[in-house]
């Protein structure tokens, strides 16, 4: 998943801070639930505004960008290859691709590019530019953060060139996957991982990182001022379709959320991500001027499903039923979350609002299930794990107390540093439920189900493995239409929600403040950031 690094509460930790990802919001003039990129701005183009941003990791090569801050900047500077509609899950060809066509068994994908595309420096955007970038990205020598996205392509990760990537002509190239995968088009809508690269950029990557050469509606105005700011300005020769309303956007970086909010009060920042630290103060002062929108991030508790007593399915269900999610959201998270009804979060196409039978609060049923399970609640202590200093202390304790109250199981909270947490995760050494989060790489239910609960999934630390579940996901991958694949993914989801290797807790909500001088502020669920290009400035 993409890491969110807001205000640097240790790399990833911030991502899931209080489940609200400390990050952008949206709304503005539309009531769009977010994510629909077709929301037309109403204001006039022109003008300039500033927004807060956390220092990105890398800007070039784009394939080294795997967190929300660099992708927010790169979204301005780069055109995507293709986008995904969050309502239907279908591809939208508003980027560089004219068409993307799979063969019958979804293994060979042909990408045709639009005519006459250019980089900011005048180099053509052709098949070679993509081959150059993708081959660079997959090569382990280059240690690119998004190299994993290339893993499905034949021959990836073995040398300087992948055997599965071939140019047909200047405008067309062919991608051969090592197995059928119907969601490959959707996967390519994570723009940074699949961006082309200019020859000038690959020749001097260090210089390019300071001032990326892109293909998008904006180009860098001066160099990247590390930990201070990044300014982008409209590219006069832009031929693409992405919205670019303001002439200039200045991104400012702040060490502490409070400093960012003070600068917002001072008029120095027009668009501000309202971090949890300042939410109550900002809410008190700005009230309804704060826009709150759902994000696609999921917070959940995982079980070590091979450890007794957590290998007992009914115990897992009972624990889930004994947690009052709504109460925790209201009292601890300031209302900034939505209780889970599915593993797939609401903004993602194919998500369901009634899928999770055991996600409701029902203490009586929880007690009955505990009794049926035959587990003696006094025979063990529930050890609840979370990573320290990332805002999880309060809600994990609240959840543990509810479990204690409703089921009579004593608890112990265990917190570790993030690096140590990851080691425990990778080694599957947890001896009790553990907190984790997930957000999308690409908008597909598959991107939640397979990594979290699939056998050997990238983020499956529960030890859970169910061949029936895996089989349904594979069938979904191979389905001919999106509708069929969503149906199959839903069946797979039902199995996981019944056996509960993880308890879905809630999906995040983000808060954003916008000054009077800007309009059309909207949160883009896919990017996990505000849609900066759409913002208009009143002049």
């Amino acid at each position, binding site marked *: 998943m993409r890491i969110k690094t807001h205000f640097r509460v240790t790399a990833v930790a911030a991502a899931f801070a209080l489940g609200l990802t400390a990050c952008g919001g949206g709304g503005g003039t539309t009531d769009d639930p977010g994510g629909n990129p077709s929301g037309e701005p109403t204001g006039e183009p022109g003008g300039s505004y500033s927004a807060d941003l956390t220092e990105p990791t890398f800007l070039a090569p784009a394939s080294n960008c795997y967190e929300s801050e660099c992708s927010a900047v790169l979204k301005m500077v780069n055109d995507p290859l293709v986008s995904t509609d969050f309502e239907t899950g279908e591809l939208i060809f508003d980027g560089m691709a004219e068409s993307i066509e799979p063969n019958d068994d979804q293994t060979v994908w042909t990408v045709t590019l639009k005519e006459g595309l250019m980089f900011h420096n005048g180099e053509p955007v052709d098949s070679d530019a993509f081959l150059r970038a993708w081959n660079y990205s997959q090569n382990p020598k280059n240690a690119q953060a998004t190299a994993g996205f290339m893993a499905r392509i034949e021959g990836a990760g073995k040398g300087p060139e992948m055997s599965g990537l071939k140019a047909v002509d200047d405008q067309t190239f062919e991608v051969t996957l090592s197995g059928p995968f119907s969601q490959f088009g959707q996967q390519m809508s994570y723009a940074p991982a699949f961006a082309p690269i200019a020859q000038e950029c690959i020749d001097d990557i260090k210089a390019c990182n300071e001032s990326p050469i892109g293909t998008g509606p904006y180009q860098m105005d001066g160099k990247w001022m*590390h930990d201070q700011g990044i300014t982008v300005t409209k590219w006069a020769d832009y031929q693409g379709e992405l919205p670019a309303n303001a002439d200039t956007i200045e991104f400012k970086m702040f*060490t502490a959320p*409070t400093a960012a909010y*003070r600068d917002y009060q001072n008029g120095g920042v027009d668009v501000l991500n309202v971090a949890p630290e300042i939410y109550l103060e900002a809410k008190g002062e700005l009230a309804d001027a704060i826009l709150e929108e759902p994000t696609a991030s999921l917070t959940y508790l995982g079980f070590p499903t091979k450890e007794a007593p957590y290998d007992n399915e009914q115990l897992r269900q009972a624990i889930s039923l004994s947690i009052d999610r709504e109460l925790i959201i209201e009292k601890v998270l300031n209302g900034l979350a939505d209780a889970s009804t599915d593993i797939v979060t609401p903004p993602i196409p194919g998500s369901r609002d009634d899928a999770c039978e055991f996600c409701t609060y029902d203490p009586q049923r929880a007690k009955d299930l505990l009794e049926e399970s035959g587990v003696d609640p006094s025979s063990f202590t529930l050890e609840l794990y979370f990573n320290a200093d990332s805002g999880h202390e309060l809600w994990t304790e609240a959840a543990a107390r509810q479990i204690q109250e409703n089921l009579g199981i004593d608890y112990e909270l265990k917190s570790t540093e993030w690096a*140590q947490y990851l080691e425990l995760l990778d080694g599957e050494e947890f001896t009790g439920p553990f907190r984790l989060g997930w957000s999308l790489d690409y908008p597909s239910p598959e991107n939640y189900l397979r990594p979290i609960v699939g056998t050997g999934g990238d983020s499956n*630390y529960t030890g859970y493995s169910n061949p029936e579940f895996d089989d349904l996901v594979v069938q979904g991958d191979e389905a001919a239409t999106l509708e069929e694949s969503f149906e199959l993914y839903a069946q797979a989801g039902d199995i996981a929600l019944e056996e509960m290797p993880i308890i879905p807790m809630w999906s995040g909500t983000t808060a954003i403040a916008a000054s009077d001088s800007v309009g059309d502020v909207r949160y883009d669920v896919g990017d996990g950031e505000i849609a900066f290009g759409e913002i208009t400035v009143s002049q």
Partner: protein
Amino acid sequence: MGRYVARRLVQFIPVILGTLFLLHVLSVLTIQIVGDPVRALFGENAPPEAILEQLRANYNLDDDCLEQTGNPCVRLFVDRLAQYASGDFGINFRGRSVAELFVERFPVTVRLTVIALVFETVVGIFLGVMAGLRKDKLVDNFVRFSTVLLIAFPVFVFGTLAQLFIGLELGLPLRDSERAPEWLGQMLTVTYNPEFPWLSLMLPGLVLGAFSLAAIARLTRTSLIENLRSDYVRTARAKGLTSSRTVGVHTLRNSLIPVVTYIGIDIGLLLGGALVTEGIFNIPGVGQLVFLAIQANDTPVILGVVTILTVVFLVANLLVDILYAALDPRIRYE
């Protein structure tokens, strides 16, 4: 004098080596106990192992000793010394040179330090002298009361209050107003503004200097009162010297020795970056660099910057020791 300085310079070497080794051991232990910082750059789903291995090699974190808890990794330490000796302070986790990072930020911190130092020394000594000369009078009571107040307030409270009331409530109308001069509005700022590299550091500088100001005022006062009672002051008075000469030349100069000692330590501390103040006013200084590096477990930055700061601290204290001789004729260095 020359020999004294040379001897002190030689003494720097074991101090720097000791500091480096201590830091090295701490950073190695952190990695051994807390876990692999390269893995922590990523989220829940690990990237392919080949990528992690390559990154570990890039950052010199691929030594096996980093997996054996308690192993001080002496070989890594020797490598690092050789690297530092050649002027290479390594790269951070984002591939940027540590020396470059430091050079980018040091001027900001120096500016902030200068403002704070000038403020605390001038105002602090002035208040101290006023209070010392009028012991137990109104001025003295005022200085004593206000300095206790300044010392009692933690800097984050003081800084936040200054930012809210001076920067925002007072400064914002000034900045918006057509009539008020621009420099005034920028001086009462909320956050650092690179377009006004000195003016927008004024308020943070004053906040930063406030604590030391109180300390300097009190040190000056006490020291002055004590020296005013000494025999040579009585002799000077008896000789019929004017009171300004008695105080200015014969008393104040040697009363400043504890003050200069304090300032010397303070320079070292201030140049090391004022973490809290820089955080409140969003100043991209050395403190912020170290703070961010600690949060990210970015060992190369922490080690490189702290090494440079150790040297800065040592030099500042050497200068102070040399200053003693200039202030008090009884002190000589041979």
